[in-house]
C-alpha cells in the first residue's frame, strides 16, 4: 500500500515536471550529480571526495591511476615517465612533459595560458606547506621532505612566507626536471603525487586572483571552468588547448569484450561538456536519474529494492530503458575490534570463539542485500597482499566449534564471562548490525551490550582507549595494503589508527620490513604473510568487504568503477545516437 502511495506521489511529480526539455543531442554532454556542495577549487584543500572529483576535471597531478587496469596501476600524467629513484630510495627525479599549457586566463600575459614548468610543481608543493594557507592536505607531506618542515616553521609567526627560499629536498634541475629528497623511505610517496592535494597550480593565477583564487580554477586539465559560482550547477567545457592525451589501448582482461576499448587511441577528453548538478537528498537524485537528467548514479540505499531485484538483477523497467547496473566491490573492510588493552581479550580462544559464532551469511543477507564479500582478513580483494585461495578458518559460522572454543578459553557456556560492551555509531544499520551480532553470540552464552555514540564521541572513546570493543569500517586512502595493515601495527596504537591497540612483534617486524620496499613481488609476499598471520590470530572480528551499486544510462560509454576517480571523467564518452533513440522512452 505504501508503495502505491509513493508511486502515486511520483506520478504527480512527473506529471507536472515532464514539460521541461533539458536534453541536447548536438553536443556530447555528460550529466553528473555531486551529493555535496563544493567548497572551492583550491587543490590544497581538497580533503573530501566530492571536491576532489570536481578539481580532477580542471587540475592535474604528476601521476594518475590507469582508468581500466586493476589492481590499480599508477601511470604518469604530467610526468613523462615514472621517476628515477636513487639507490637509497630517498631521492626521486621527475621529468615532466613538455608542451603542456595552463588554461587561458586573464592571470597570464595576453590572457594566453603559459607553458608548465618544473618551478610550478615546486611552487605547488610549497603552497601545501605554507603555514599561512592552512592547507588541509599538509599531513601528506608532514615530516616527509628534507627541509620542508623547517621552511614551514620559519614562517609560522611571519607576515608572509617567502617562496623564493631554497629547500634542500625540493630542487629544480632544469625547466622540465626536478627532484624531491625524502627524509626516510616512503614507497607510498608516488600515491601522494596522484592525490588532488598535490595537483599543480600556476603562481600567476594564485597571485592575480588572490583571495578569489578558489573561485577561478586555472589548471592544465581537460576541462575549463572560468568562474566557479556557488550554485547548484557547475558547467565545464572542453579545454581547447589541452595537450595530446589519448584513450588507453589496453586494460584489464575482458575490457575489450565489454566495449571499454572502443575509443582506444582517441584524443581525450571525449565529451564536450560536463554538467554537474549538486543534489544532496537521495530522492531527487533518484528522480533526476529516472528522468535521464543524470547519466550516472550511485543507487541510494533506500531505492535499492526498486532498482535491483533479488539483490542482483536490474528491474525490468530500468532494463527496458537500456540502463546498466554496476556492482563495484569497494576497497574497504568492516570489523568489530577488540581493545587488546583489556586482559579479557588476551585470550585468543575467546576471540576465535566469538568470531565463528557470528553468522555472517545471515548478516550479509540482512544488511548488504547479499552483495558484500565476507572479509577473510584485513586486506580487501583488489590489493596486493590479498590471496584469493586463502580462507580464514575463523570466519566460518560453526556454533558447536564456537562452544568448544569458548569452553577451552575457560568460559564453558559463557560462565564467568562478564558482559561485553560494544561501541558503535548512532545510526540505524550500525545498531541493527550489533543487535544481530549480540543475538548470535547469545546462543553460545556471551552477553553483548550495545552502546551508541555520536561520531565524535566514538572517535574520542577509541582515541582515549575507553572502549572495550568497537565497530567501524575502513576505506582505502590509496591502493596499497600498507594503508590497511597499518591498522594493526603496534606503534600506530591509539591515538593512532590502530584503535584495537593490537601488538604482535612478529607482525610489526614484517610491517617495518615491508613498508620501505617498493611495490613488487617481495613486498606482496610479505603483505600476504602478514595478512594471513593476523587472520588466524583474530585481532578483530572481520566483517565484510562491501559493494556499491551504480547505474549508468545506456548512452554512457567507457564507464568502469574507480575507487580513486577524480581523473576518470575525461575518459567517459556519450553516444548521441543511442541517447536520441532511447530518450523517447523517458
Amino acid at each position, binding site marked *: 500500500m505504501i508503495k502505491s502511495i509513493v508511486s502515486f506521489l511520483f506520478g504527480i511529480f512527473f506529471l507536472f515536471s515532464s514539460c521541461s526539455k533539458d536534453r541536447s543531442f548536438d553536443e556530447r554532454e555528460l550529466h553528473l550529480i555531486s551529493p555535496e556542495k563544493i567548497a572551492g577549487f583550491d587543490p590544497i584543500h581538497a580533503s573530501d571526495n566530492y571536491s576532489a572529483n570536481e578539481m580532477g576535471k580542471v587540475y592535474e597531478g604528476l601521476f594518475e591511476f590507469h582508468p581500466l587496469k586493476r589492481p590499480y596501476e599508477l601511470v604518469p600524467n604530467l610526468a613523462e615517465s615514472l621517476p628515477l629513484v636513487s639507490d637509497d630510495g630517498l631521492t626521486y627525479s621527475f621529468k615532466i612533459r613538455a608542451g603542456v599549457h595552463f588554461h587561458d586566463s586573464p592571470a597570464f600575459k595576453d590572457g594566453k595560458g603559459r607553458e608548465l614548468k618544473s618551478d610550478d610543481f615546486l611552487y605547488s608543493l610549497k603552497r601545501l606547506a605554507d603555514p599561512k594557507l592552512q592547507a588541509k592536505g599538509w599531513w601528506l607531506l608532514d615530516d616527509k621532505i628534507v627541509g620542508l618542515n623547517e621552511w614551514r616553521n620559519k614562517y609560522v609567526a611571519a607576515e608572509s612566507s617567502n617562496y623564493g627560499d631554497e629547500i634542500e629536498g625540493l630542487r629544480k634541475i632544469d625547466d622540465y626536471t626536478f627532484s624531491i629528497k625524502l627524509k626516510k623511505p616512503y614507497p607510498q610517496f608516488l600515491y601522494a603525487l596522484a592525490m588532488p592535494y598535490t595537483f599543480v597550480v600556476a603562481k600567476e593565477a594564485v597571485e592575480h586572483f588572490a583571495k578569489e583564487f578558489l573561485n577561478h580554477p586555472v589548471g592544465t586539465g581537460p576541462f575549463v571552468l572560468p568562474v566557479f559560482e556557488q550554485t547548484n550547477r557547475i558547467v565545464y567545457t572542453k579545454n581547447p588547448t589541452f595537450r595530446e592525451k589519448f584513450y588507453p589501448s589496453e586494460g584489464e582482461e575482458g575490457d575489450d569484450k565489454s566495449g571499454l576499448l572502443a575509443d582506444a587511441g582517441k584524443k581525450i577528453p571525449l565529451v564536450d561538456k560536463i554538467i554537474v548538478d549538486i543534489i544532496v537528498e537521495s530522492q531527487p537524485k533518484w528522480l533526476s536519474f529516472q528522468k535521464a537528467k543524470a547519466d550516472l548514479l550511485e543507487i541510494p*540505499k533506500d531505492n535499492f529494492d526498486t532498482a535491483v531485484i533479488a539483490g542482483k538483477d536490474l528491474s525490468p523497467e530500468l532494463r527496458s530503458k537500456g540502463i546498466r547496473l554496476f556492482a563495484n566491490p569497494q576497497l574497504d573492510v568492516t570489523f568489530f575490534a577488540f581493545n587488546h588493552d583489556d586482559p579479557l581479550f588476551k585470550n585468543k580462544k575467546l576471540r576465535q570463539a566469538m568470531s565463528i559464532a557470528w553468522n555472517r551469511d545471515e548478516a550479509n543477507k540482512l544488511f548488504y542485500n547479499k552483495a558484500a564479500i565476507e572479509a577473510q582478513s584485513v586486506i580487501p580483494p583488489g590489493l596486493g597482499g590479498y590471496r584469493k585461495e586463502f580462507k580464514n578458518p575463523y570466519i566460518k559460522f560453526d556454533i558447536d566449534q564456537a562452544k568448544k572454543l569458548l569452553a577451552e578459553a575457560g568460559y564453558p557456556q559463557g560462565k564467568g564471562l562478564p558482559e561485553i560492551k560494544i561501541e558503535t555509531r*548512532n545510526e540505524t544499520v550500525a545498531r*541493527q548490525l550489533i543487535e544481530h551480532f549480540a543475538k548470535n553470540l547469545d546462543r553460545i552464552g556471551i552477553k553483548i551490550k550495545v552502546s551508541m555514540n555520536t561520531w565524535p564521541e566514538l572517535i574520542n572513546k577509541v582515541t582515549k582507549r575507553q572502549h572495550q570493543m568497537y565497530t567501524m569500517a575502513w576505506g582505502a586512502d590509496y591502493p596499497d595494503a600498507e594503508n590497511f595493515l597499518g591498522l594493526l601495527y603496534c606503534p600506530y596504537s591509539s591515538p593512532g589508527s590502530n584503535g584495537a591497540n593490537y601488538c604482535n612483534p612478529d607482525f610489526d617486524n614484517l610491517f617495518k620490513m615491508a613498508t620501505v620496499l617498493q611495490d613488487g613481488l617481495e613486498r606482496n609476499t610479505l603483505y600476504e604473510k602478514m595478512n594471513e598471520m593476523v587472520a588466524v590470530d583474530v585481532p578483530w572480528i572481520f566483517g565484510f568487504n562491501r559493494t556499491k551499486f551504480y547505474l549508468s544510462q545506456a548512452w554512457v560509454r567507457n564507464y568502469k568503477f574507480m575507487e580513486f576517480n577524480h581523473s576518470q571523467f575525461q575518459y567517459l564518452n556519450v553516444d548521441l545516437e543511442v541517447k536520441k533513440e532511447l530518450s523517447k522512452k523517458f
Partner: protein
Amino acid sequence: MNTNSLWKDAFFRLTKDKLAVASLVIVLAYFIIAILSSLGLIASGWSQEVGASNLAPSIDHFFGTDIFGRSVIMKVIRGTQVAMSVGVAASLIAIPIGVTLGALAGYFGGWVDDFVTWLYTTFSSVPNIMLLISITLILGKGIFSVYVALGLTSWVHLCRLIRGEVLKHREREYVQAAAAIGGGHLRKLFRHILPNVSHIIIINTSMQFQVAIKSEVILSYLGLGVQGEPSWGTMIDDAKLELVRGVWWQLAGATLAMFFILLALNILGDALRDALDPKLKGK
C-alpha cells in the same frame, strides 16, 4: 444542598463524561500491560525469533515480524513498559521539584521568588530537546539517564503554575485565619494552601506524562534513549529504512501504541481539568 467533598464531586463529574471514562480505561490498560510486562508475565520472549525476517502481519503474527524475525507485537508491549516507566519516573522526579520550588517562590516572594523565577526562565529558554540531549550525554546512555533527564527538564511548567496559584492563595482569608490562630509558614503552606492547589498537580501530571512519553520516543529514535531494549523510538528508527521496501508494520505498531496512549492522556487531562476546576470549563 450538595454536601459532597471536592474530590467526590470531581469524580462524579468525570464519570459523566463518557470519553473521559474511556480514556481512563485505556490509560489503566496501558499500566496493566506495563506492569505485567515488567513482571515477565507477558512479552518476556521478545528477543526470540518467531519466524522469518520481516513477515507481514498474519493470523500467526498479529503485527508481523521485524528484521531479525522477532514478533513486533511483543516489541510493542515491551516498548509500552519502557514508555510507561519513563512517564512515571519522570513525574516522580519533576513533581517534587516543581511543587516545592513553585510553592516556596509563591509563598515567600522577594528574593526567593526572584531566584526561582530566574531559574525556571533560564531553564525554559534552552530548547527542551537540546537540554535533554546534553543531559543524556553527560549521564551516559540507558533508561536511568532518560528518567533523570526527563525529570530534570519537565518541572518548569508545573512550578510556574503552582507559584501563580500559591501567590493568589496566600492572601486569602483562610490563610489569614490560619495565621491568626498561630500557624507558622510551613503549616500555612503545606497544611492549608497546598491541598487547595493540589488539583493543578493532577491535571499537570496527566499532561506531563505524555510529554515524557513523546520525549523518550524522540531520544530513542536518536539513539540516546534505552539501549538493547525495544522502545517505540527505536522501532520507528528501524522503520525509517524499511518503509521503502513496504515493511510498514513496525511503524504502524509503534505509532498506534503511541497514538492511543497520547490521545487518551490528552482527553483525560482535559476532563480532569474540567472536573477539578469547573470555573475553567470551556476556556
